């Protein structure tokens, strides 16, 4: 049996609570932003805030910040893939 | 002939260009393969050389095919543009595809089924839509094809410069009688066409 002691990162409770607070604040901001009508910009703001929240969860709750390169890199690849799939379909629908 | 180039010529040229290049390449590959297998067979050539790569060669055979491929793309794309750019003054005909027939409606509301009649020497634009599932209008003689989609109007145009009768088919699978969903495209002289258009069924 190999030991599984490969430097587990322990997140401090304080950090976690800090992250949670930030997440809640961002939630409030996104609700607030949706009250103001900025036209098309609204969607982008909402997506930006959601992405920030998502980054917080992924980096700290899911420990991605402390993971090895393989996982970090493959996660970026996946996001890239998602962006391509959603983006490339607009070659069609935006010009139809 | 009123300055319109028939797009099918470009399409055919693109076919010849791409298939020609491909045949040359294919023969080259096959010949090399056969020559190597015979020339370097073990009984004749028991001592293999240890070659693991050649930087120059590998770069060359990445770049040259890229150039060829891009030229093919360009020729294919310009042929496609010809199929999409409808010249002004085209006759517009509406076609409705349904399981399993084609309803053809002329600007004066004349309606016929499974038959398209067009005058010789005038560009024709067909606006196509579907009443139910997907269909696709394919007129092989004019190298055109487009899907009929419910809720979407698509078009093809072609230039009938010769008289005659041509088949058209459905090429998007649409059910049990898919293969029977054919029709005839008749190209007739312009005078006959005007007369035909006014005729009652």
């Amino acid at each position, binding site marked *: 049996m190999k030991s599984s002691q490969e430097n587990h990162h322990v997140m401090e409770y304080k950090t976690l609570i800090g992250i949670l607070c930030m997440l809640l604040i961002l939630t409030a901001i996104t609700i607030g932003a949706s009250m103001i009508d900025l036209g098309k910009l609204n969607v982008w703001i909402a997506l930006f805030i*959601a992405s920030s929240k998502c980054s917080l969860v992924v980096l700290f709750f899911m420990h991605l910040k402390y993971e090895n390169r393989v996982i970090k890199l493959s996660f970026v690849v*996946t996001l890239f893939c998602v962006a391509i799939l959603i983006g490339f*379909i607009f070659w069609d629908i935006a010009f139809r | 002939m009123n300055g319109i180039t028939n797009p099918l010529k470009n399409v055919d040229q693109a076919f010849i260009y791409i298939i020609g290049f491909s045949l040359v390449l294919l023969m080259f590959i096959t010949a090399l393969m056969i020559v190597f297998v015979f020339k370097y067979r073990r009984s004749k050539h028991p001592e293999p050389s240890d070659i693991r790569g050649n930087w120059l060669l590998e770069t060359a055979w990445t770049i040259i095919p890229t150039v060829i491929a891009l030229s093919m793309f360009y020729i294919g794309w310009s042929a496609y543009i010809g199929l999409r750019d409808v010249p002004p003054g085209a006759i517009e005909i509406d076609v409705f595809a349904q399981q399993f027939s084609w309803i053809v409606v002329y600007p004066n509301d004349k309606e016929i089924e499974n038959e398209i009649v067009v005058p010789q020497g005038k560009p024709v634009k067909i606006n196509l839509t579907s009443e139910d599932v997907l269909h696709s209008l394919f007129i092989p003689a004019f190298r055109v094809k487009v899907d009929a989609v419910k809720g979407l109007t698509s078009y093809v145009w072609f230039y009938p410069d010769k008289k005659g009768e041509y088949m058209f088919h459905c090429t998007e699978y649409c059910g049990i009688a898919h293969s029977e969903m054919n029709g005839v495209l008749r190209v007739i002289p312009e005078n006959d066409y005007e007369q035909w258009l006014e005729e009652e069924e």
Partner: protein
Amino acid sequence: MKTTHSDTKGSRLGMWLFLYTEILLFTGLFILYAAYLKKYPIDFIEGGKELSLFFGAVNTVILLISSFAVAASVTAIRKQSAKLSAGLIAAAVMIGGVFLFNKYIEWGQKIHHGIYPNAPDLVNGPPGKNIFFGLYYVITGLHGLHIIIGMILLCVCVFMILTNRIHEGNDGVLENCGLYWHLVDIIWIFIFPLLYLIV
């Protein structure tokens, strides 16, 4: 004998790979959302207004808290306080239950108001609205299914912590189940503004 390897790094890699497939699964739906938002911007805004901001916001907040609880429980197990860890997970499961209960009420209200797939009001109304609610039901339904799966996984974790099969030094299972729960949370982070907050 085959060595029974306990390579937690490897199983975590496997879990992440699995999460990628989940992300791509929802991407399929978000592609549809993006395409239809482009096609029916007005109807989507109208549809968004009919959804209850209250339920959406509450569910967002509680999911975030449950995510925190799961993250904290991993910390707890590493600090050798198994009881706290189990408690936090149990709390997360309960929050998941509240989430589902809210969802149930919300769906119930919608269905009561004649908004459900293939409802006459929707079919005869503006096409974009039908699409919006079609997506709403599919996305939230699939997400709800993931919540249920996540809750089951977390329950297993509670059980394993209490029977000392997850402990400090062997917390791979807890960590991986936690990852899954966080992913479900992330997906909701995107669903919430896209469905509820669209203006």
